[in-house]
């Protein structure tokens, strides 16, 4: 049935697979980034294609509407500048109090903007690739967020790009806290393959008093994410394991299905 050539092909493919699967994780990570680098020349083309509808829409937008938008943004900018100066004064005051009490002073977040260039082609993982890497100061486990809320963490880093594992992925667990009087603590775990923007908040205490709409933020425990990053809002809750603990569904603040640009937190200060 098998000819000599077919035996060779079967043996070669099996050997390559076994070799690749038995490589140490560090070598695999480097190899993956190396092979993924072959796709680098296409990143620019993809961005151009994605920008086409936006540019087309800009071209047909009336000039009056654009001027009105600019005016709105200028007003918004002035309002934010005033708020920022107030916040800076509050931060200085907070630092002075911290110095008086002897607490560690908080540093302002150092954020870097990144574009999402690729999504995981497999349906059973939730990862994206961003256009920042080693050369930009990105390292593994740095938190990634948008202005709406938490997105995930950096899982592997190449020279010019990095892989980010989203909070919907099974390998990204986040310790989170409900913003309620009891400050209930739980762990964010994936919802399901089709449940976009919904995750589970598990291992809450059995008598947790949860209400729909309550905010969920990172707790700062776990050693990766600093405290206070918005995660989402409680949708509903249920008892699990015969009332031993409570589970809640959380609607994510960040829209993970439409990620274009994200912020990488370069100096996560942990509690």
């Amino acid at each position, binding site marked *: 049935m098998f000819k000599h050539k077919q035996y060779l092909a079967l043996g*070669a493919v099996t050997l390559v697979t076994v070799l690749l699967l038995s490589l140490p994780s560090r070598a695999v990570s480097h190899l993956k980034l190396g092979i993924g680098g072959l796709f680098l020349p296409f990143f620019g083309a993809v961005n151009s294609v994605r920008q086409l509808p936006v540019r087309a829409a800009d071209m047909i937008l009336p000039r009056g509407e654009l001027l009105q938008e600019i005016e709105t943004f200028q007003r918004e900018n002035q309002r934010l500048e005033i708020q920022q100066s107030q916040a800076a004064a509050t931060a200085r005051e907070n630092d002075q109090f911290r110095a008086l009490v002897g607490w560690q002073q908080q540093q302002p977040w150092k954020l870097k903007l990144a574009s999402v260039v690729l999504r995981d082609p497999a349906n059973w*993982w939730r990862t994206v690739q961003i256009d920042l890497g080693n050369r930009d100061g990105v390292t593994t486990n740095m938190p990634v967020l948008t202005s709406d809320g938490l997105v995930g963490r950096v*899982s592997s880093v190449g020279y010019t790009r990095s892989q980010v594992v989203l909070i919907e992925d*099974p390998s990204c667990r986040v310790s989170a806290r409900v913003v309620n009087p009891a400050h209930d603590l739980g762990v964010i775990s994936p919802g399901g393959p*089709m449940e976009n923007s919904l995750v589970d908040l598990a291992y809450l205490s059995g008598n947790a008093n949860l209400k729909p709409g309550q905010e969920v933020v990172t707790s700062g425990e776990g050693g990766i994410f600093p405290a206070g990053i918005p995660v989402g809002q409680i949708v509903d809750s249920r008892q699990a394991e015969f009332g031993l603990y409570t589970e809640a569904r959380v609607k994510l603040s960040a829209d993970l299905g439409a990620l274009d640009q994200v912020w990488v937190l370069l100096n996560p200060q942990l509690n």
Partner: protein
Amino acid sequence: MNILQTILILAAAFLAVFGEAAFSLPRQLFGAQVDLLPALMIYAALNTNVVTVSLLAALGGLWFDALSANPLGVSILPLFAVGFPICLRRDLILRELPFAQVVLGAAASAAVPALCILLLLSGGQQPLLGWGSLWQWLVMIAGGAAATPVIYALFDWCQHALGYQPQTENSFRPDREIRRGRKLN
């Protein structure tokens, strides 16, 4: 045409993997990304040799895993497991029929992700699975089934445009020419 065909198939696999990672329209519309590698593997298994099938499995699997969170190499064996038996028994398959192409594309698109998940689970990984995965699987099967005849037509067109065509036989033979009219000495 053999080397050119192999190069074209590998280039198509490269672009297919990149397209799956760069454009997520099927994911937004149907909740799942369609994988084109099984459909390409069907074409390669039915029309090329075992070397091309092995190269497509190895390189296509590597490219796919490099852009995904899969362990590197986990997609190679499922692709090869689909392509190799079809390549061995292709004389028994009516490969020119679109219906056969659709059925083979659907079967390959069903088998490859299932084998991948099986390998991942046996390797101790925890992929994102649930009841919704069944829907995603169906979308992948339907996408692969629809893509296979399209890939066939595309590669047939390429082969027609770039390959050498067989020389057509002329029915005219000078030695059999009937000469009409009376022969004058």
